[in-house]
């Protein structure tokens, strides 16, 4: 009986903690929206964040995307050979990349690189009283630090997915030529003739939503750090896990709604 009571207590406190974090994130998202609508954001911080989060992520995203395109071709190569469907290679690789694999993989890569860094940076600023320092100067951290970062992450991930898609398709075409001897022109005709703008749009909607999820989770856990260096480490961990969960849930929802 005692064990059952403890189990229910544990379940209850876990649920409360979950709703506490979800409420904190919803509140932060609302404040960001209000800050955006009233244009209360620091433009210098926005430009700085776009460079740091977007431009500096280009090499790793391009590398990931190139090999993602290659993997699409390697995996589908078995069936392409078996059925002789060489004319469908561009369509198959493009469909999976644009709609699903591109946004998901680049989103997770972005979360690991940019989201974790953002949570650590904001967490360190919190424990070293830098956010209090801003407030003491009558500057609200939401407009000065959070809104620019949320906007920058959404724009950066959107652009990175666009670029990543291009690189992944190019990588797929190259691997198709090297491994399956599919001509580049045949690959691109298969891609262009069978895919619709909607296939690209679904991936880009996902990119924007993933960018929002990564930015809100990392900013929330970063600014609610308690307990020094250990707390910062915990915040980074929580931010990455929460972002991954949010990416998977929102991906499912978007895929179901925008099929």
């Amino acid at each position, binding site marked *: 009986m005692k064990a059952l009571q403890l189990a229910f207590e544990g379940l209850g406190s876990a649920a409360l903690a979950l709703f506490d974090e979800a409420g904190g994130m919803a509140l932060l998202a609302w404040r960001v929206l209000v800050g955006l609508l009233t244009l209360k954001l620091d433009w210098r911080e926005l430009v*700085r964040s776009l460079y740091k989060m977007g431009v500096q992520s280009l090499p790793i995203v391009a590398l990931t995307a190139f090999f993602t395109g290659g993997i699409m071709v390697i995996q589908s190569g078995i069936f392409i050979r078996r059925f002789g469907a060489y004319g469908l290679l561009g369509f198959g690789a493009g469909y999976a990349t644009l709609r699903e694999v591109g946004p998901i993989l680049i989103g997770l890569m972005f979360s690991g690189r940019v989201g974790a860094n953002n949570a650590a*940076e904001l967490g*360190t*600023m919190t424990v*070293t*009283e*830098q956010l*209090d*320092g*801003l*407030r*003491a*100067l*009558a*500057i609200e951290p939401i407009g000065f630090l959070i809104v620019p970062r949320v906007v920058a992450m959404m724009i950066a991930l959107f652009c990175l997915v666009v670029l990543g898609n291009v690189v992944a398709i190019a990588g797929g075409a190259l691997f198709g030529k090297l491994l399956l001897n599919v001509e580049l022109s045949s690959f691109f005709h298969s891609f262009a003739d069978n895919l619709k703008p909607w296939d690209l749009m679904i991936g880009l909607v996902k990119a924007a939503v993933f960018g929002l999820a990564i930015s809100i989770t990392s900013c929330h856990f970063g600014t609610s750090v308690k307990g020094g260096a250990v707390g910062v480490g915990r915040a980074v961990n929580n931010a990455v896990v929460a972002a991954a969960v949010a990416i998977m849930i929102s991906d499912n929802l978007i895929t179901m709604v925008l099929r």
Partner: protein
Amino acid sequence: MIALTAVTKSFGARPLLAGVDLAIGRAETFGLIGTAGSGKSVLAKILCRLIAPDAGSVRVDAAQVGMLFQNNALFDFMTVGDNVAFPLVRQAQLHGEEIRARVAERLRAVGLAGSEEKYPNELSGGMKKRAALARAVIARPPVCIFDEPTAGLDPVTTSKIYDLLRAERDATGATVVVISSDVEALRSFAPRIGMLHDGRLRYDGDAGAIADSDDPVVRQFVRGALEGPL
């Protein structure tokens, strides 16, 4: 200038401030001491309007309060020059050239001339403290709160910091609250000292007489005695 009446603040079940009354006049210098965790920094943040009290009233007759934080709170993504200029830039009342001149003058005053382009992580502990001090006072706030301005610094740097605080106070006539665990250094700076203990001000009076206080807690803390109620 500053008036606290029956201020209380708890974190969870733990009451940190349990009815603090304090009045500090214009251009007065007040030193606040207390054991670790007694709520000194929380009181400073209440004065700075960073934390709201649970109950009681807080009145600070100043549009702007300059705060030197215990951890310096220098923005580590900005250069020292940008950090010090920050309060002036945000006020947007001065032009770029005037701001640069004021920053250079402030950095010179705290012994950091030519450090404008350095980042906080390139500075030693004492230099960070001086840069943070320059930022806290550059906009000439009428009320300045210095939280542990000499924590972790060697005696020579401690003397330099207090010299800087003295010069700043004399030049601006600001109301100054200094929180410190270094009782000796504080006694030479602040003519009036208060000791926070168990959520209340156990002593509030002449700095010269604090060592002979009737309260054994205050006496033990100031003298650093091992025997006693603490």
